[in-house]
């Protein structure tokens, strides 16, 4: 009996050893592959030298690279495919496989990066950029840039969103949008208002006039991505130099208080779930609200889903006498573990270069980040998009430092509760800052 137990133990131990052995083996693999990547990143100088003669060597070998992105509307995906087809026509030896990650994009891409399964090139939102730079998983692109690529043509704030602290560019913005005020022309006419509000005070006055018959003046998205400019309008900051939360200062609260007051005191604004909608564009299209702050993405949606809606766009009303808005941008970045860096760069170069960007932004589903492309396509004179283009000169890029996800999560959680009147804004923001900073400290 005793002996049986011993045998059992021995068998189990052997089993553990086998499995542990497998684990060790895979560890070896990963360490050797990381050795490879370090050697190839050391060889980035050689790759830049070969980039001049890249077209010669490229003719011989067929290479497949993978592009990861999140899902979008069918029109957008078709347009992207068209752009990629154009790229493959230009470089017949490179085949691009476009792979969509439809849900929880960042969670999935991070997991794939760990497992070595991420695409050679993938999308990266500006808000997540700084967190990823610090992790040493992206290929610095400085060594690849050529004069022809003309980096100065790209809007500077958007370009800088993907510049690491080490001065390296880790990605180039593919498109961008700022927030603008969408207003329902029919509602405005009925209410006897001649045009969109130009100051936040006017916006609140107008909202009072427009709120009637179960309809509300303004639709609000109570989250940091949309409210950050209210924090900065009175001189507040979302994060300090160390990346820690700092949005509970009196200056920061002053702007946010306007949003809260309009919802709780004026009762002229609502969030989407209060009227049974999924997001701002939807409740605006369903005419449950007369005004909403959204970006370029709402224009194709409104035109397709609500073709009869008469609406206009205008720059965000000034807050504290200042012009303010947010800028959202997404870049193409390169996976450091990519086995085909030369080809991956070719793809980034094409997609964020003049040629590719012109195709990608030609239908106005996305707006260009290159000044030359924007001028050529004439979006600064477009009926709906002129306001979006105008905003890009003073917009605040949507970026909240290295600890973005923590800051965002805590702000959103507490701001909602203040927005619903469960606690004062000051208490809510103090709690959010405290929790966020505690989490950041615990991470280190």
């Amino acid at each position, binding site marked *: 009996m005793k002996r*049986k137990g011993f*045998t*059992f133990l021995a*068998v*189990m131990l052997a*089993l*553990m050893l086998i*499995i542990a052995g497998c684990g060790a083996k895979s560890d070896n693999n*990963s360490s050797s592959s*990381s050795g490879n990547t370090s050697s190839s990143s050391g060889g980035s100088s050689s790759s830049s030298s070969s980039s001049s003669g890249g077209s010669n060597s490229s003719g011989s070998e067929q290479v497949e690279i993978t592009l990861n992105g999140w899902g979008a509307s069918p029109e957008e995906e078709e347009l992207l495919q068209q752009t990629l087809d154009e790229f493959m026509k230009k470089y017949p030896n490179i085949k691009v496989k476009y792979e969509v990650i439809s849900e*929880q994009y*960042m*969670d999935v891409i*991070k*997991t794939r*990066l*760990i497992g070595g399964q991420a695409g050679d090139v993938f999308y990266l939102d500006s808000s997540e950029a700084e967190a*990823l730079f610090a*992790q*040493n*998983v992206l290929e610095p692109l400085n060594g690849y840039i050529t004069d022809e690529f003309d980096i100065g043509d790209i809007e500077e704030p958007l370009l800088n969103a993907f510049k690491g602290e080490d001065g390296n560019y880790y990605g180039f913005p593919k498109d961008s949008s700022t927030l603008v005020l969408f207003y329902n022309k029919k509602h405005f006419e009925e209410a006897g208002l001649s045009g969109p509000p130009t100051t936040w005070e006017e916006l609140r006055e107008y909202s009072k006039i427009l709120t009637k018959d179960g309809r509300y003046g303004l639709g609000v998205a109570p989250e940091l991505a949309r409210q950050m400019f209210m924090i900065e309008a009175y001189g507040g900051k979302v994060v300090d130099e160390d990346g820690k939360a700092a949005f509970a200062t009196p200056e920061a609260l002053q702007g946010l208080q306007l949003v809260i007051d309009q919802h709780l005191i004026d009762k002229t604004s609502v*969030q989407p*779930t*209060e*009227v*049974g909608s999924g997001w701002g564009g939807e409740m605006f299209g369903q005419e449950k609200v007369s005004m909403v702050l959204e970006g370029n993405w709402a224009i194709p949606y409104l035109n397709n889903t609500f073709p009869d809606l008469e609406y206009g766009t205008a720059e965000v009303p000034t807050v504290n006498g200042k012009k303010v808005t947010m800028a959202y941008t997404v870049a193409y970045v390169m996976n*450091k573990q990519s086995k085909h860096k030369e080809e991956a760069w070719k793809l980034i170069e094409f997609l964020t270069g003049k040629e590719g960007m012109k195709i990608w932004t030609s239908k106005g589903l996305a707006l260009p980040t290159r000044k030359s492309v924007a001028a050529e396509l004439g979006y600064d004179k477009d009926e709906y998009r002129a306001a979006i283009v105008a905003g890009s000169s003073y917009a605040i890029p949507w970026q909240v430092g290295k600890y973005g*996800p*923590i800051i965002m*999560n805590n702000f*959103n*959680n*507490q701001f*909602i*509760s203040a927005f*619903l009147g*469960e606690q004062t804004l000051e208490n809510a923001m103090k709690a959010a800052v405290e*929790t966020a900073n*505690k*989490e950041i400290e*615990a*991470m280190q």
Partner: protein
Amino acid sequence: MSRRKLRETAAGYLFLLPTLLVIGTFLLVPIVYALFLSFHKVQLLGGISYRFIDIGNYTRMIDDDRVWIALYNTFEYALIVVPLQTALAILLAAVLNSKLRGRNAFRVLYFLPTVTSSAVLTLIFMWIFKTDGLLNDLLGFFGFPAFNWLGDPKVALKAIMLMNVWSTAPYFMVIYLAALQDIPDSLYEAAEIDGARTLRKFWSITLPLLKPVTFFVVTMGIIGTFQLFDQAYIFSNGSGGPNNSTLTVVLLIYQYAFKNLDMGYAASLAVMLAAVIMLITVIQRRLFGEEKLN
């Protein structure tokens, strides 16, 4: 002789090997690995590394408000859902065990929600829970106030409770049904001769005889409710919002593991959850066991 015995033993283990391998790889090793991780600070992105930090991950929990919120939410959820779904399951089983017309049809109908994928159920229920959705229409019809089920922190968790009771009660109903078939008719007949009515029979015969099954149902129910994840995840799009009101322990583990990539801390939270569930099961066993003695 001893050699033969050895061969016999070896043959025995050879037969066991497939099972041992499967259990070892998918049960034992993950448990040991989770324990190992829970004492380490794990760096995943950009080169994997482990750093031993003793019980640092466990002491961190004490200071982490979100852990307490998640535990509170999970306890509240279990405390309301488990009794409700158990009672509902007994009730449904008792009704369907009687000689109703078309009871097979009813059995299938009641069991359907359990067969449906919980992800699909949640999406459908989110439509029902919309401010201008079916549930609010129904409440309005009976003169009750409407709620913002998806957006109001006060009721968001209740919405998930409602959905879960509805979808898991039938599963336990089937277990009760099977147990009910085992109760001999003679007991009921004897009770009838003694002049017992339906309610009395249910109270004095059915319920006591179902006690072992009830123990099983409550235990499984508690484990299930403590592991609530998919509904809360879909409901809040992974954030646990609004205002942490749908943040459950497993959702928190997910957030730390995959959003913050803090595997060590996530593993320690998982170990903590396992300990809590074990503790509750032990307490519960005591309670049920003691009653048996009386």
